[in-house]
């Protein structure tokens, strides 16, 4: 058969192979180049302390990005993650500072709140058949609004005055603050540790488990997955709940680091997380959402921003740089891959 004989001799031309290599390893090379460049330009860049500060700065965004990777795997998108993180931060602060409860109820109630938003997203998408972007955009606004109501739109700080004139008596427990500020062996920040564990778990889940494989099947062709017997609705719901839970966890780490319930602190997270997950498409030529790529994407942006800051680049250039990296990565993924065919 002609088609089989052609399959048996896959010897692409050199130029084609170069393009293939560029698509596959391009972004990893860029990451390596960034590290080399900054360590030459500013030797302090490579100090262990600074490397961990890069990881620390990236850990929360990476958590959210891993969550959105899961929803992208089922062919969806979760825009509400930033709002969920902010809500989680406000819930935890409210529970500890206003209600005066401990760290454990604060964490549990925050996560429960996150899961609830995930269920709402999933229900809107699966049962109400609202398109994913619209459903999560709607719930994003809803959640941003809801978290402002209990405090009348004010941030929560220890000893603040409530709308009814009372002064709060609770405070952030040290156990809770350790989540954001503690270090393992005095060197590895706890948030970095948590994110690393979650990243490995998400990677294993998507690459090695049956449910992960079915996530990709649903994302690739929902009808084919349904006809092959996959519980499509249940798994999509699961993806949105997991995404919201991870966002919630990210919000908790942020609250623990800040030590206050800052109403505006979750806002920038959603775009950074989406960017990291999208850059991840280009890593190793995956062309699909994947945990490893997401992590590399988040690291790439963080290393770049850290290095630029060290070189005294203006802070307002940050968004421009992020955008540039994202656009270049998307070019790698889609543009070059298309031409290589």
């Amino acid at each position, binding site marked *: *058969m*002609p*088609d*089989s*004989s*052609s*399959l*048996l*001799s*896959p*010897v*692409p*031309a050199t130029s*084609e192979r170069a393009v293939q290599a560029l698509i596959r390893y391009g972004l990893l090379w860029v990451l390596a180049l960034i590290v080399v460049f900054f360590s030459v330009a500013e030797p302090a860049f490579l100090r262990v302390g600074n490397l961990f500060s890069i990881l620390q700065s990236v850990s929360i965004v990476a958590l959210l990005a891993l969550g959105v990777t899961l929803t992208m795997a089922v062919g969806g998108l979760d825009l509400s993650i930033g709002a969920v993180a902010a809500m989680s931060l406000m819930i935890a602060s409210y529970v500890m500072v206003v209600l005066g409860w401990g760290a454990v109820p604060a964490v549990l109630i925050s996560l429960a709140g996150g899961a609830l938003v995930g269920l709402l997203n999933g229900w809107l998408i699966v049962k109400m058949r609202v398109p994913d972007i619209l459903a999560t955009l709607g719930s994003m606004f809803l959640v941003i609004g809801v978290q402002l109501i209990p405090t009348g739109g004010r941030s929560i700080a220890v000893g603040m005055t409530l709308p009814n004139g009372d002064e709060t008596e609770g405070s952030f427990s040290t156990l809770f603050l350790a989540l954001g500020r503690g270090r393992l062996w005095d060197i590895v920040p706890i948030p970095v540790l948590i994110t690393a564990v979650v990243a490995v778990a998400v990677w*294993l889940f998507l690459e*090695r*488990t*049956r*449910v992960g*494989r*079915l996530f*990709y*099947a649903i994302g*690739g*062709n929902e*009808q*084919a*997955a*349904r*006809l*092959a*017997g*996959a*519980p499509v609705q249940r798994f999509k719901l699961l993806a949105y709940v997991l995404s919201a839970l991870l966002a919630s966890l990210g919000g908790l780490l942020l609250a623990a680091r800040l030590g206050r319930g800052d109403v505006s602190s979750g806002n920038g997270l959603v775009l950074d997380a989406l960017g990291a997950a999208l850059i991840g498409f280009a890593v190793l030529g995956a*062309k*699909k959402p994947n945990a490893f790529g997401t992590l590399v994407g988040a690291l790439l942006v963080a290393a770049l921003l850290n290095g630029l800051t060290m070189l005294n680049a203006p802070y307002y250039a940050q968004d421009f740089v992020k955008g540039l990296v994202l656009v270049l990565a998307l070019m790698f993924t889609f543009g070059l891959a298309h031409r290589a065919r």
Partner: protein
Amino acid sequence: MSTPVAVAVEPLIRVRELSKTFGSNRALERVSLTIYPAEVVALLGANGAGKSTLVKILAGSQSADGGEIAVDGQPRHFGSPLSARRVGIVAVHQQINEGIAPGLSVAENLLLDELCRPDADFWLNRKRLLERAAKIAAGLGLVLPLEAPIEQLGQAERQLVVLARAFALQPRLLILDEPTAALSDAEAQRLFGLIDTLRSRGVAILYISHRLSDLQRVADRAIVLRDGQLAGEFTARQLPQAVQAMLGQALQDHVYTPRAAGRKVLELRGVKVLPRTRPFDLSLHEGEVVVLTGLLGAGKSEIAEVLFGLRKALAFSVQLDGADWLPGSPREAIRSGVFFAAEDRASQSLVPDFSLRRTLTLPFLERFTRGGFIRNRAEAAAVEAQVAALGIKTVGIDVPMSALSGGNQQKVVLGRWLLGAGRVLVLDEPFQGVDVRARREIGQLLRDSADGRATLVICADVDEALEIADRILLVRDHAVVAEYPRAGLDRATLVAALAGTDADPIPLHATPRSRASA
């Protein structure tokens, strides 16, 4: 079958030494051919022989690496489908959904080319649009719901819309790639009538099909490609030789070996698919292959959908192995051992970017899982065994499905369901886009593996039906209306039964009655 190839007639298209290479794969190697006005040329070739590449180059959607194309003696280079269309070359590709724009109405789809023209009016004139569309449809004798969204049409009606669109462009060379793949015999006959009309108006037609009966009906001569090279030109009378040239060796006549029917597996009683349709009975037995045939829009797929939990039937009783049974979802159906491979492979069975391995194990992944994790080695072993058992031609199990030919893709889809020990296997048009040899192989695999389960194949093509069936059920208006045992059944009887009575005119494909099924 008169071919007006007089000496005086100038060729419409002359292709000389056309070559095209993809990577290391030579898709076309120095192919030369000539097409005259007012003739139907069949283009034959097994999957991967280079037919699609040749068509794409002629239609301007790909450019050749070498060689030249001359139209009316003038050398031409097509940079885009539009430039090919300017000289009158129009192609209708096999993928129907590439030819329609969802979200637009049927009328808008019919006039899509007109709407896309840069000199088209800025404002849409709804009334004029409908009038124009009605004229195009009427010119071809089609009755279409012009104002309905195109999504409401079934595959066959969509195919006819796409064809009508091509006809409306008033082509000089019309390229048709498997135009009857989604059509039943009656619809195909209508299409052939249209082709005859076009030919008499001087239009040249390049016709690609795996169906010999189609070619015998319409082709004036045949050009055969094999491994990217010209393997010969044949007259209409030499079609068997042409097929031989296409395959490189003779295809043996199919010999029917009956299989004994065993225990009753599935029994449907008084099933009504739609409120207004007649109730019918249907029973399937272990070991036998039953074909469900009928015209397009007769409701064959709908009956299968009831069995797979995709559609609610009315007033019925269904028994599986003697127990009352009715699945609420595909998942439930699969759990009880009823498997279904849907009609449109690309949109209903395959996941883009999924490798052969992943595609094959998708429904029964649980088997290769321990504690939620996939056991890679067990999965690979099972996939490799299945690839060997079904004779799937591939360089490995981790290649993307798009690297396989249509026939091999279909084998993977079949192989995935053979992994499960099913009670009932339902295949909807398993031979679409599959060449003759692969079709025979798949039919044989199906029959060889039929022990221990009941097999139901939906198949509008009479020859395909006769090749694989032990029993043929005729479906009309969403009900099984007649049953024919294979032994002693000849083609003519079946064709007559399909068409209603011989004297009756062939029913229109898109009368309101059959549309209700879409």
